[in-house]
């Protein structure tokens, strides 16, 4: 089950905890992976760890030209882009009353606009192939909101609406577009929380623990697989029961 042999997957934010786990899971299922991210060193390290079928494709998603070029670079390196995982994301948290236009815009640009452009950039190849998988990594806060994250929550909710709209348009072409919405996951992003914050979060998670990057990767692997052909426009919530949506 979930055999991705012969498929080529582009993963953004592959230098991070969740992105790296996604890349490993898709690679383990047989896919060729294009590892994109801003920091080249961890991408190289991951590529070396994976060995064959791994390409490093550095890209700063806040650079519009670099975003426009990435789908083409990925297709040239791997031969195609059959699977796109928009996982990269940034946070610029601030209280709504204090949030600057720059904090708002930078999060929208990287988390939402770059996702739009990358989806658009890979569609031509997927339409011709009559097969494609797009998985956009949203967040629980896109559904529930979160104080201090007006920008991030807006971008993550925006990804869901965008995914559904695109899913409608390309469903007849064998292309599925879905979102995965992680809850609190053990990554560098959540390591920054202090003990009190962590304890407060744990109290809200029925599972009583944070999730692992591998648990997100498993959801992405499923949605990327041939077996998930009839699943489109959905959001798979992976959050330990924190929000049952």
């Amino acid at each position: 089950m979930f055999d991705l042999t012969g498929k080529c997957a582009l993963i953004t934010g592959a230098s991070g905890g969740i992105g790296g786990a996604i890349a490993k899971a898709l690679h383990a299922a047989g896919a060729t992976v294009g590892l994109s991210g801003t920091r080249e060193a961890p991408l190289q390290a991951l590529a070396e760890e994976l060995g064959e079928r791994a390409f490093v494709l550095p890209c700063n998603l806040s650079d519009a030209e670099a975003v426009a070029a990435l789908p083409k670079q990925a297709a040239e390196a791997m031969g195609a882009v059959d699977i796109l995982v928009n996982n990269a994301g940034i946070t610029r948290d601030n209280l709504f009353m204090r949030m600057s236009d720059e904090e708002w815009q930078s999060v929208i640009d990287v988390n939402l606009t770059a996702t739009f452009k990358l989806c658009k950039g890979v569609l031509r190849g997927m339409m011709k192939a009559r097969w494609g998988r797009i998985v956009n990594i949203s967040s629980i806060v896109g559904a529930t909101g979160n104080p201090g994250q007006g920008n991030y929550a807006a971008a993550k909710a925006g990804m869901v609406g965008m995914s559904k709209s695109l899913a409608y348009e390309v469903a007849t072409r064998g292309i599925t577009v879905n979102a995965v919405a992680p809850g609190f996951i053990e990554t560098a992003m959540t390591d920054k929380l202090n003990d009190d914050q962590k304890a407060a979060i744990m109290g809200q998670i029925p599972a009583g623990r944070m999730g692992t990057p591998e648990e997100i990767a498993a959801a992405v692997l499923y949605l990327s697989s041939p077996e998930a052909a009839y699943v489109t426009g959905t959001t798979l919530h992976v959050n330990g029961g924190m929000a049952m949506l």
Partner: protein
Amino acid sequence: MSDIPDRVRKIVVEHLGVEEDKVTESASFIDDLGADSLDTVELVMAFEEEFGIEIPDDAAETIQTFGDAVKFIKEAS
């Protein structure tokens, strides 16, 4: 150059699965040949590849009929 209409017709016939004689000068892809809006996007993509040209989005929107397509491609190539 003179074979442009034939090459365009071949793409339309293959892509939309219609009879060749239905693809007349004034045949609208959507109204007469059963295309949906995404089909028209794919037709434009196919024209771009067949003729090695770039069809910008605003121009693509004006290509509604077989005749429109032939005219645009003749001018562009």
